[in-house]
């Protein structure tokens, strides 16, 4: 296929054609598209989740509220929106949690933003439920032998946020500095801090 033909028939061209058709029919406006693009490229992202985790590390009462009702505890920090009905699951010395959506790509948008492409890939979705130790190791996340892996397949209303263990050597850090330590992957469960 020539480069020119690819430009006419590839997904980017089809996306532009669908956008043009929907605008012609009055089903969508540039203002609406721009607002969605701005929201997901600038306003929501894993920094929100990092702030939730950092607060849970320093405030035992907040952690308790987070575990009892994730959605409400997250809303306390001002984070609300679609895909926001969150269940927080805590890593401990005995348990490592990891999140997947085998059927589609359910993900806690309000705290982590939109999922990375690999989270939505059939590779990740197929393998994490069946061979979590192998896949975690491949992704650079080594779980000690005596730690139980709990996989959460978010197949319905709930979205999962992993609360990683607070790493050693962070005793002197305030909440803002602690949030810098928390990575997106640690809140999905494919990394340990």
């Amino acid at each position, binding site marked *: 296929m020539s480069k020119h033909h690819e430009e006419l028939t590839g997904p980017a061209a*089809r996306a*532009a*054609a669908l*956008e043009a058709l929907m605008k012609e029919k009055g089903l969508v406006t540039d203002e609406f598209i721009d607002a969605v693009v701005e929201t997901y490229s600038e306003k929501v992202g894993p920094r929100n989740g990092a702030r939730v985790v950092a607060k849970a590390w320093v405030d035992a009462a907040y952690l308790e509220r987070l575990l009892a009702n994730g959605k409400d505890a997250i809303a306390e920090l001002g984070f609300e929106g679609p895909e926001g009905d969150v269940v927080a699951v805590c890593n401990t010395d005995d348990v490592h949690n990891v999140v997947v959506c085998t*059927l589609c790509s359910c993900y806690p948008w309000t705290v982590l933003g939109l999922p990375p492409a690999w989270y939505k890939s*059939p590779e990740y*979705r197929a393998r994490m439920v069946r061979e979590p130790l192998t896949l975690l190791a491949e*992704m650079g996340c080594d779980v000690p032998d005596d730690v139980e892996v709990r996989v959460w397949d978010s197949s319905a209303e709930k979205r999962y946020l992993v609360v990683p263990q607070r790493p050693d050597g962070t005793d002197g850090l305030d909440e803002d500095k602690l949030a810098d330590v928390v990575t997106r992957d640690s809140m999905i469960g494919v990394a340990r801090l």
Partner: protein
Amino acid sequence: MNGPHDVGGADGFGPVVREGSGEPWHLRIHAIAVAGMLSAGYGTPEFRHAIERIPPARYLASSYYERWMTATASLLVERGVVTSEEVGDAFPLAGPVRAPRLPEPGSDVTEPRFTVGDGVRVRNTHPFGHTRCPRYVRGRRGTIVRYDGPCNFDDVEAHSDGKRLEPLYCVRFEASELWGDASEGGTVNVDLFESYLEAT
């Protein structure tokens, strides 16, 4: 439906590739998909079902946002908002809905049949319509670890103009119950609606 989306436990996919950022059209299609739902009056379950109806070979060969694009175009054509001629031949569409349209969503179920700690078995059902019950847990035994209250039942909303509630649970399966000798240990925890489950 036992569609190409239901990949949990499938082999042969290879390594997870962590590539870089997305392309500019991805977020625009995200917005367009949301606009399609709002303007043509279908919800997330029906949208997900349209993605599931993409023929398997094309589903697996498509990127995530290509699937969103195909589902949106398909639903707009199916709803009569645009014509297939307007969408054009170059645009691949999803396959037909095989489950019957429900004339009524039915009555809400608000009293849970199970409680945390109960043993359950997932019914071995294979509906042609939308379901949030993955194949890899069907027929398997687990334990209820969380009750989430009555929630909107996606399986009904996908095929009805209305909605109904049904109790939702998180069910914990020992990995060995799901994968036998090939298990790597630990547990898999899956959110399942009450009508997927029977007492053990």
